[in-house]
């Protein structure tokens, strides 16, 4: 092949790559622009400080907002994360660190099944487990449903980051006479913590956007409630019900809610990126080195002054 032909091929491939990227990015931009254009007018002070109430409120122009849904989303999501973390991390450890254990293949099968299960089934599962047995829809049932969404994500990321931590680390711990569980807890998990945090945040953001598992569990509530045993509102489920409502005012509030949900997910990822970076820096001693350097300059200055 001549040099010219090579350049031509290189250029063609570049054009192809750029084109494909645009095909992916442009619809995303359109969605963001569309959501923002439609919802920005709904974002006033009332939106963040008032509960939704009955449709009459919005129609009559009385103050109404999505405060209950915003707070509910955060509450239900955080409780779900607290429930899912121990199970997700434990099953990840089981698959990575104890592959010879008789439970390991069962765990793997369950995690992949959960992972492939449609989210609405997680809602049904939580409905059967919690709602049926406690006698009604509740925020906690919603958390359980979202925990089922989170567990396989946390589990799989935990397994894969544990797998890439070097064997030599485990061997070094064992050679000191540490038992295996101690090596896992004190050496392997800390070395993999940045990856585990990333997994937890992906799970958190992913669950924050799920409406289906919540319809049958936390159900929704037009009024503000902090009672975990009662129905509670969440953004995704509220967006759905606002969208299918016949009221124009509610539609516009729904677009506003979509902006908040979008921001919430984006902020979660962003916060996660920063947290992971901080952790890596600390692990590499960047801060310690900086602090030592600062201490040294201060000392030098003092000595120079004398």
């Amino acid at each position: 092949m001549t040099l010219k032909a090579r350049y031509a091929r290189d250029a063609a491939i570049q054009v192809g790559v750029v084109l494909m990227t645009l095909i992916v990015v442009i619809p995303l931009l359109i969605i963001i622009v569309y959501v923002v254009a439609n919802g920005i007018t709904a974002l006033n002070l009332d939106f963040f400080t008032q509960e939704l109430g009955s449709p009459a409120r919005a129609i009559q122009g009385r103050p109404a907002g999505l405060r209950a849904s915003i707070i509910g989303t955060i509450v239900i999501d955080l409780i779900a994360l607290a429930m899912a973390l121990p199970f997700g991390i434990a099953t990840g450890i089981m698959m990575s660190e104890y592959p010879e254990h008789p439970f390991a293949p069962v765990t793997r099968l369950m995690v992949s099944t959960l992972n492939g299960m449609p989210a609405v089934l997680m809602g049904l599962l939580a409905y059967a487990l919690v709602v049926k047995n406690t006698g009604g829809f509740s925020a906690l049932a919603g958390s359980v449903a979202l925990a089922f969404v989170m567990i396989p994500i946390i589990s799989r990321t935990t397994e894969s980051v544990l797998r890439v931590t070097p064997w030599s680390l485990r061997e070094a711990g064992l050679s000191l006479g540490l038992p295996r569980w101690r090596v896992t807890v004190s050496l392997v998990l800390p070395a993999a913590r940045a990856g585990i945090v990333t997994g937890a945040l992906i799970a958190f953001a992913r669950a924050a956007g799920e409406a289906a598992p919540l319809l049958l569990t936390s159900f929704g509530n037009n009024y503000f409630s902090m009672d975990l045993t009662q129905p509670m509102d969440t953004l995704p489920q509220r967006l759905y019900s606002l969208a299918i409502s016949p009221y124009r005012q509610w539609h516009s509030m729904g677009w506003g809610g979509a902006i908040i949900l979008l921001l919430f997910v984006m902020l979660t990822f962003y916060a996660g990126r920063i947290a992971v970076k901080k952790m890596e820096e600390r692990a590499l001693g960047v801060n310690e080195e900086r602090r030592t350097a600062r201490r040294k300059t201060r000392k030098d200055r003092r000595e120079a002054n004398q």
Partner: protein
Amino acid sequence: MSNPVNGSVRMETKDLSVRYGPAIYGIQNVSMPVHANKVTALIGPSGCGKSTFLRALNRMHDLNSDVEITGQALLDGEDIYAPQVDAVVVRRKIGMVFQKPTPFPTKSIYDNVAAGLRLVGIRKKQVLDEAVEKALTGAALWDEVKDRLKSPGGSLSGGQQQRLCIARALAVEPEVLLMDEPTSSLDPASTLRVESLIKQLKDQVTIIIVTHNMQQAQRVSDYTAFFFVGELVEVSPTGTIFGSPREERTKEYLSGAFS
């Protein structure tokens, strides 16, 4: 702790074989004594099974389910592979320094060295401080790190990391210390310091050291074992091996006939 008589047999292997697969031998039928409070050097060409043998002595192969071990490895007459023996207890008595430096990257220099001690329940700061300083001094690292004990172990240079690993192994005061080419990533000065440490440690510890450096073997060891293609060719006092080896293959190896 009952310290065995100087020069008596501390460890002994009997027909010890390690297979990495049905027909892949790492070592085959190795029978040799390891004398108490002596330094035994393992020499031989690359891939002859030195690391395999060393790792078999503190049950480091346990985690790899493909590895099959037959024969015996006795510590004070008791087989460390006997069913009632706990590998964790064995490894507390038999410490190891690996071929590649393996500091705990997220732990500080101090915590790296203190890790093993904390495990056996030592919590007193003063005791830990003293043990950490002693181990780091022993490993010829104290002066370089005494001002930055809180920095992570991963922030040290490769050679410093290896000395940190030596200090970490020393801190728990093992009875037997296995060292797999401990100085291969060190500069000449640190190498000499580690060698003098080895000679100094002999009073308390039985040491087995793998080395590719024949001068080093002669400088530090009392006994030398020559391995070739998974077999132990001969083990003799170091002076005998380097002076007048019994086996023809040992002679050829030492004269550089194969490497």
